[in-house]
């Protein structure tokens, strides 16, 4: 029996075609990876496989799970299907798990709903499942005490608990650090092979798709094409010639005390960044990348060491001097949705840094806002709208416009492109490279995507547990085998 068969499926929302005559099969023990830009219909296809679409939207075609057309099923039968015959793994394990229940309790719930096991059998089955997903922990632990990778393992245990013939995974590794991404990919691959399940893997990450998938299919504007092309060209960035030192970080340490007494932070970090140069900072989550960003931005003072910008130390600058330093540096954050006040219009958001220039007339403010929007390719009429009206890529442009409005010398990007799909990311990369060339901007670029580092950065600083592991030109880092951490981070996708 074939776990999933999609037969000439067309889905239409109003007059927009979401899926156009899509045929797709996932065989038992096969991993099919579905790639495509956002808006291409990936989510619609997943929803169709679970029969979560409004019936009116489906124009033609059928979805069959183990040969049975799911459109003929009643709501009660569908509930057996979802979670029982079809296991689902979501992008964000933090939200997929119920924080109030133990991990064992959550896995047991799936077993209670979808199997006929007795209470005792459920207990031992939970233990077995935790072992299968490589999580030798007590089932009495709560999700908050687990790392992102461990939570995703729990989510996988829940998805496979009822031994479904079909697994659907929606960006299962996107929110994890590179090391955990790697482990989860390996786990999924071995589970599918051993349990003879079919896996439909929706992802932006072509490297992941190439590594574990048997087939890659691409969706574009609702149409399916076998074998995705590689959106990343080989063209890397020209190395910068190196100019005047702009940001100097000298033997800096900073620790934060967490509630349960464990301190995190960075220690003994030194580097410098010249005008017009890009330094990438990479490392697994919790390695201190964001701490470093906050220190460079002057948001937090270091415990020891000093950080200076254009020759001026953050620690000693006061009043007007400090405001002058503030004008030099801006930031773009990871989640454009969280980096805007939801109650402000685009104009108010983009104009915010103008506060540092003192009083401006309304006309001056508006002309600067429109100028900044134009630099990132947004029309003037965007100014009056709310950020919620824009797509993810456009929102990140708004965030960049806000960073540009004061014409700073340095912009810090804290995972700023991680949430975008490859096509949009490519557009933003091109935009950022152009802006850097035109305005001689320095970028401090925090990332965990190696393709991005290769394209954007001149040099790279590798952090681990808050310490610098390596600092040097990007090209010197790839293919290193002397250090297992570096080797894992810079493993080439092929």
């Amino acid at each position, binding site marked *: 029996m074939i776990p999933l068969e999609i037969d000439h499926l067309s889905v239409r929302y109003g007059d927009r075609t979401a899926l156009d005559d899509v045929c797709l099969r996932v065989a038992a023990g096969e991993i099919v990876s579905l790639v495509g830009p956002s808006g291409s219909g990936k989510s619609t296809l997943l929803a169709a496989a679970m029969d979560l679409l409004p019936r009116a939207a489906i124009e033609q075609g059928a979805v069959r799970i183990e040969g049975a057309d799911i459109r003929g099923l009643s709501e009660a039968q569908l509930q057996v299907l979802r979670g029982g015959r079809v296991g689902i793994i979501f992008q964000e394990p933090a939200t997929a798990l119920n924080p109030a229940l133990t991990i064992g309790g959550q896995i047991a719930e799936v077993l209670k709903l979808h199997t006929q096991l007795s209470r005792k059998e459920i207990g031992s089955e939970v233990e077995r499942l935790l072992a299968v997903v490589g999580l030798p922990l007590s089932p009495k632990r709560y999700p908050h005490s687990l790392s992102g990778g461990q939570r995703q393992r729990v989510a996988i245990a829940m998805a496979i608990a009822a031994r479904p013939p079909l697994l659907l995974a929606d960006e299962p590794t996107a929110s994890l650090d590179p090391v955990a991404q790697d482990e989860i990919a390996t786990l999924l691959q071995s589970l599918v092979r051993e349990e003879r399940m079919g896996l439909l893997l929706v992802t932006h990450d072509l490297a992941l798709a190439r590594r574990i998938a048997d087939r890659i299919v691409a969706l574009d504007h609702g149409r399916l094409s076998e074998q995705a092309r590689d959106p990343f060209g080989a063209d890397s960035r020209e190395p910068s010639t190196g100019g005047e030192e702009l940001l100097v970080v000298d033997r800096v340490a900073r620790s934060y005390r967490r509630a349960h007494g464990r301190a995190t932070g960075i220690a003994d970090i030194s580097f410098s960044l010249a005008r017009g140069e890009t330094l990438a900072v990479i490392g697994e989550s919790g390695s201190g990348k964001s701490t470093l960003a906050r220190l460079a931005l002057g*948001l937090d003072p270091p415990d020891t060491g000093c950080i200076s910008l254009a020759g001026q130390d953050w620690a000693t600058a006061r009043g007007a001097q400090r405001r002058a330093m503030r004008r030099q540096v801006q930031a773009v954050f990871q989640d454009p949705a*969280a980096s805007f*006040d939801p109650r402000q219009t685009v104009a108010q958001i983009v104009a915010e840094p103008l*506060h540092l220039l003192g009083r401006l007339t309304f006309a001056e403010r508006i002309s600067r806002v429109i100028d900044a929007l134009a630099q990132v390719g947004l029309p003037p009429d965007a100014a009056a709208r709310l950020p919620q009206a824009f797509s993810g890529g456009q929102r990140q442009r708004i965030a960049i416009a806000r960073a540009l409005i004061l014409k700073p010398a340095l912009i810090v990007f804290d995972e700023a492109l991680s949430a975008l799909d490859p096509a949009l990311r490519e557009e933003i990369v091109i935009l950022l490279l152009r802006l850097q060339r035109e305005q001689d901007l320095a970028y401090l670029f925090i990332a965990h995507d190696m393709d991005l580092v290769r394209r954007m950065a001149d040099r790279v600083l590798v952090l681990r547990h808050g310490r610098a592991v390596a600092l040097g030109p990007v090209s010197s880092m790839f293919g290193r085998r002397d250090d297992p951490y570096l080797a894992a981070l810079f493993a080439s996708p092929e």
Partner: protein
Amino acid sequence: MKAKVGTLLLGLIAAIALLSFLWTPWDAGAIDVARRLQFASWAHPLGTDQLGRDLLSMLMAGARAPLGVATLALAIGLAGGVPLGLLAAARPGWLDEIVTRGADILLALPALILAMLVVAVLGPGASHAALAVGAFNIPVFARVTRASARAVWTRDFILAARLAGKGAALISAEHILPNILGPLVTQATLQLSLGVLAEAALSFLGLGVQPPVPSWGRMVADAQTLIGTAPWLVLLPGLAIVITIFAINLAGEALRDRIAPETGL
């Protein structure tokens, strides 16, 4: 629909309270012992009480005290509690500690008993009742404001505002306050209806507005010995209190949906 009913009902009650300043069918304080304890008639649509006063007029005028005291107490609570909560959220450390612990201590004490104590010391009267109830609204708003504001402070857009060189006060006013309106409106609704209830309780005990000004709570107290002979004298003011609280809660829901639809508590 539900929201519309609540808004209309609360508007009606407030309008009646205001109207009673200008006009009531009879003088609410006019005693006519010859016509005491009459049942409803054309002259007295809801009958008369044990002193021959017109019950409809008393119910109309009796709305002023609970609404007035609850509104004033709410204003005191907001004016005192919101700035304290914003301050505590903006300055984690000893200041936050003082505000939170202070609020905890005040909230641990039984509010109504202490309000009675305050009124007993200051002397009975509407303004003292409002002061006593309002004083206990302050820690409630301080706590809600602090908790909601702390959550907003962790968002990235606050970092963006700090990068724009804005200080804690400006950030609190521009970014924090507009984003915590939802929980504040919810709490304000709750405190307003609790204020109506508190005024009724204080009046019932003789600590609210003083005679001859009527108040629903005291009307219940005055008529409680007559519950066997003239039950409407107790039931109607009691019903007025219940309907008012109900209307406030419904109207509050409508207001919250309008001001902060995304919080959806």
